[in-house]
């Protein structure tokens, strides 16, 4: 079951809250949040390879706040063009870059300045020149039509109040034969109207 945004939800407030929370995660990942962050969480609960994460810049792994593991499903082809929707501190972009090699490219999309700064520093530290980060709304991507082989994402699509607009935009940028492989949250029961209007739950 997906979460459908109720008409009464204040979308601007949701956007503002998301920006505020993820700026705090970027600046102080050790702070108090109602979701997990970091390398140890990614390895223990999500199946990431702890040894591989250890090789990445700490700035990228410390602020990781995904909810699943898009790399468990299928291999990213060498030379592929990969886009990470809501790239955060860049951990998944770095892992994607390792898989596609120097002949491919990774574009990380995020709307949080602090996360983008952290991600760019991490990519430079790791010497991954095939990664670039763009500040953009995920429903208006700065990407050419049918230019992407694989879209990845981790815990961000649920934050889009208009899923149809987001998926239409993803469909536009993906090449014929291309794919989405992303992690997000699922809800097993119908939510009450109060729960669907609770921004604190949306930003979790």
């Amino acid at each position: 079951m997906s979460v459908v945004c109720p008409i009464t939800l204040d979308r601007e407030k949701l956007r503002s809250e998301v920006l505020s929370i993820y700026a705090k995660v970027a600046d102080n990942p050790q702070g108090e949040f109602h979701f997990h962050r970091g390398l140890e969480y990614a390895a223990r609960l999500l199946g990431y390879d702890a040894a591989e994460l250890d090789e990445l810049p700490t700035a990228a792994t410390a602020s990781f706040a995904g909810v699943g593991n898009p790399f468990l499903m299928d291999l990213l082809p060498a030379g592929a063009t990969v886009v990470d929707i809501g790239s955060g501190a860049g951990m998944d972009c770095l892992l994607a870059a390792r898989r596609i090699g120097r002949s491919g490219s990774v574009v990380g999309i995020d709307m949080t300045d602090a996360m983008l700064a952290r991600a760019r520093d991490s990519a430079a530290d790791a010497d991954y020149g095939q990664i670039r980060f763009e500040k953009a709304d995920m429903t208006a991507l700065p990407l050419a039509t049918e230019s992407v082989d694989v879209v990845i994402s981790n815990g961000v699509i649920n934050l889009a109040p208009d899923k149809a607009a987001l998926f239409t935009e993803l469909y536009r940028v993906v090449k014929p034969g291309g794919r989405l492989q992303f992690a997000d949250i699922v809800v097993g029961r119908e939510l009450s109207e109060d729960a669907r209007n609770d921004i604190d739950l949306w930003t979790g």
Partner: protein
Amino acid sequence: MIEALQQTGFQSVRVCNFFNSFSGTTKEKVARKYGVQGANFMAYKAA
């Protein structure tokens, strides 16, 4: 999520893995109440 992806035109949409992403967090009780968990999704655009 699956229906929204299919309505957009994506094919072979499926959920592949589940994760107890909120285990040990302050939202664990709410997550358990509503069956909220992490999941991996795959979806393809026709060639």
